[in-house]
């Protein structure tokens, strides 16, 4: 058993729901106990969809367990077909139904419904949401596109030069972080390159669209967590190459344009010459100078975490001090990325472990998920959201892609906004005793909320400094005047200063930290 306060991903059948809900003409019959319909409100409330997800739940109860739950499933599948008349059906089990072993796939087959039925085997006690989405998408693609596959070993016929090259966009789902606007942004970018989009899937696709995936010249994998498996199968089956670069950030978008140009046989120069992201100028303008070396901790799904790290390091001039992901399937890629920044990768789905790491590293900015918001709020560190899981505020009404050149504009604003603005940061450093603008107050451009008062039951939430900064060594004490001096260091770097000073003292076997020690450590470590 794993003690879980927050979970980064839902169970795998929620991933399957994200595929079914993203598509048109698909229905998902899910063998599940009463109550599992809570998942509907992820789509109707968080994503604000105006239709019920195309999911029929059997919602069996305890009294049904003695009877025939298999019969309940068959009735639900039959009635769902008759009522909704889908073009394809997914059938599967939730975690509880997995335990009672009714075999939805076999039962649905016995019904002999006149449409493609794709059975899903999603092991709930081993795997999670993104894997469930990936697996579901792969099985859907395989079931629907297989009949159109050329004989094995045959070459792709050359593209008719009379038509523009075309690709599929793979990976966007329901409940995906900014998927809606990423698709719009990338579609526009491809159009400027002279590349058409044949099928976008699963988002907005019908089963018939999946059947013609093989007709495109190549595939664009927007979200590897969802579509890498399906893209690999398409490559084997239809000889379609797939893009490797995810176009999040200016540099990554330029790489992506070059990669697509290569695959499509088009000239990227006009698009790149007209590349109009404002991020490069905003980041070079002098008001961004104070961002240099800001220590940032990054956590999320692997795709967004790695993209954010590149932007933070190469495009904003931050210093990446921590990089991690909950996407175990992409641990290797993320480890390689982390090495490039000289940090150790954190591969975990344990929220408590992430929290401990943030407390230890004392970053000045956290880029993460909804969960890192909880952590950052508790430790009073500025935070921006870069990845699912996210809440309703991250399904905004306005156009807010992460991808492409406009995505980079959105990201610049997002990654800078939570930080204290430059002038305020200077003044806080110079004048400590201001009754209004003191360093425990949040940045004044975020309004004047007083620091949240800790509740007595939140033992760990008491005075954040004390909560997170247990002494490195019990042997070391702070002299009173050194403690006073430490308080004169601005709040957002104070934690780091405290840790460095204690480490410095420990390494030298000092038992008391004086003002001298504090400044010796500062000289030793730099900022």
């Amino acid at each position, binding site marked *: *058993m794993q*003690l879980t306060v927050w979970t980064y991903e*839902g*169970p795998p059948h929620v991933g399957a729901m994200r595929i079914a809900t993203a598509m048109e003409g698909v229905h998902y019959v899910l063998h599940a106990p009463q109550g599992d319909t809570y998942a509907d409100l992820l789509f109707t409330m968080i994503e604000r969809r105006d239709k019920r997800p195309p999911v029929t739940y059997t919602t069996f109860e305890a009294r*049904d367990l003695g009877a025939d739950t298999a019969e309940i499933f068959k009735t639900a599948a039959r009635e769902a077909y008759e009522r909704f008349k889908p073009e394809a059906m997914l059938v599967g089990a939730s975690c509880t139904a997995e335990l009672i072993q009714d075999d939805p796939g076999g039962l649905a087959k016995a019904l002999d419904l006149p449409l493609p039925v794709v059975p899903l085997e999603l092991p709930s006690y081993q795997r999670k949401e993104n894997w469930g989405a990936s697996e579901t998408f792969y099985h859907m693609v395989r079931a629907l596109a297989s009949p159109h596959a050329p004989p094995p070993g045959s070459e792709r016929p050359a593209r008719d030069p009379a038509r523009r090259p075309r690709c599929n966009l793979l990976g966007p789902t329901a409940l995906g972080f900014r998927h809606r606007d990423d698709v719009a942004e990338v579609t526009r970018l491809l159009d400027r390159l002279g590349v058409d989009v044949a099928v976008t899937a699963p988002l907005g696709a019908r089963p018939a669209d999946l059947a013609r995936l093989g007709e495109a010249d190549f595939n664009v994998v927007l979200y590897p967590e969802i579509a890498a498996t399906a893209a690999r199968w398409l490559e084997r089956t239809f000889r379609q190459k797939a893009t490797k670069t995810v176009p999040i950030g200016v540099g990554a978008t330029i790489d992506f344009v070059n990669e697509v140009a290569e695959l499509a046989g088009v000239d990227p120069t006009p698009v790149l010459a007209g590349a109009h992201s404002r991020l490069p100028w905003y980041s070079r303008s002098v008001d961004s100078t104070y961002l240099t070396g800001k220590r940032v901790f990054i956590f999320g799904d692997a795709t967004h975490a790695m993209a954010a790290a590149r932007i933070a390091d190469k495009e904003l001039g931050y210093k990446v001090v921590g990089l991690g992901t909950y996407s175990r399937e992409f641990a290797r890629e993320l480890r390689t990325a982390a090495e490039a920044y000289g940090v150790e990768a954190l591969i975990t789905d344990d929220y408590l472990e992430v929290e401990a790491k943030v407390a230890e590293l004392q970053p000045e900015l956290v880029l993460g998920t909804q969960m890192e918001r909880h952590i950052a709020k508790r430790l009073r560190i500025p935070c921006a959201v870069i990845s699912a899981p996210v809440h309703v505020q991250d399904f905004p009404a306005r156009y807010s892609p992460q991808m492409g050149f406009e995505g980079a504009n959105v990201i610049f604003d997002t990654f800078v906004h939570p930080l204290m603005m430059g002038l305020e940061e200077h003044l806080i450093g110079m004048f400590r005793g201001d009754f209004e603008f003191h360093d425990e107050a949040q940045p004044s451009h975020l309004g004047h909320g007083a620091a949240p008062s800790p509740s007595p039951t939140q033992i760990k939430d008491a005075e954040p400094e004390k909560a997170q900064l247990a002494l490195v060594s019990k042997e070391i004490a702070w002299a009173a005047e050194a403690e006073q001096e430490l308080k004169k260091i601005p709040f957002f770097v104070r934690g780091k200063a405290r840790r460095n000073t204690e480490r410095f003292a420990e390494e030298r076997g000092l038992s008391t930290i004086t003002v001298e020690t504090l400044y010796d450590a500062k000289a030793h470590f730099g900022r």
Partner: protein
Amino acid sequence: MSALANSAAPPQPGCTDAPVLRERGQREVFCGLTGIIWLHRKIQDAFFLIVGSRTCAHLMQSAAGVMIFAEPRFATAIIEERDLAGMADANEELDRVVTQLLERRPDIRLLFLVGSCPSEVIKLDLSRAAQRLNTSFAPRTRILNYSGSGIETTFTQGEDACLAAVVPELAQAPTDAAPSLLVVGALADIVEDQFRRLFADLGIPVDFLPPRSSQELPAVGPNTRYLLAQPFLGDTSKALERRGAERLTAPFPFGAEGTTEWLRAAAEAFSVDTQRFETVTAMGRERAKRALARYQEELAGKSIFFFPDSQLEVPLARFLSRELSMKLTEVGTPYLHRQNLAAELALLPEGTTLSEGQDVDKQLDRARAARPDLTVCGLGLANPLEAEGLRTKWAIELVFTPIHGYEQAGDLAELFCRPLMRAERLEV
């Protein structure tokens, strides 16, 4: 209309004998785990550890995540594949997780092990686990267990199961104790305080279950009279009666009338002088009526349809029809406790369509056919129905908002009025 038209019994008022449409099929409801979302705030030194799957953890954070940024007083021990291999192993794992949790949160005085669908299907005996853990952790931390699983409980029944598990923990009141009143059901703190003042003015000694701290559990015995503040507490009632407590029958304290009759039931049981009762309740009743008058015009004559959710549907339908003149099209409830709702059913207008349970697609067909002015439903249905042009009131809010008692009568009406006013106000 009455199914018993040719029976020998005298005709009963309202809907006492009304037929009930019983449906089986897909149910669009929460499981009992969701009760934790308000219970963990009510009982401040309690912690709720769900023993379940990732789905359970996901449900809790989806339902509560938007509200809770601090570390909440609930968590999930997620069953993994290796736990499914052998029972002894799962128990050791549970002990390890509980130890880890109590080390992390030494302030916890009461720990609930909450059963879920997966833990029940694999027959993990949490009641025995609780007994075993008590030998290690009591008296510092008391460990109890109940089931919040979807296969056993619907939404608010989670509170019922939780409180029923607490009842055996209550001290035994001596047989010669003076009669006292117990108000049962988690109420908003402000509502609890208002009721305390009213009972004090009536001269009735009162306790509340659940209390705000596990260290303040009331005593119970044969001289305890109890009033349900919530309609979904069937198992808790039975548990209290086993301890000798006696139930007072009353409608639920919604609106001016409901609150008055609820208080009257207590006043009569404690032989409070009629004059005194009138004096004590007059002000609140007057204020409630004045507050309700503001919403009369907007709500009178409007039709309302209830999808099943919390078992609050029947009392709320009674309040909306009798005090605000709304027309009831269908009143759906997950369970219809005839005994708990006896006083309510008698007050419902005759001919009201009652339904118990759900086949959600068929019920949606009925709602679409009826085109009610307002539909009370869960969050999985609300936006889709809005998109179809039906105005909705999402039901869960009725559990998360102070709605009981005189001072909240206007707020309760306003909750139903707001979607209608909003629809009138929006021009785009």
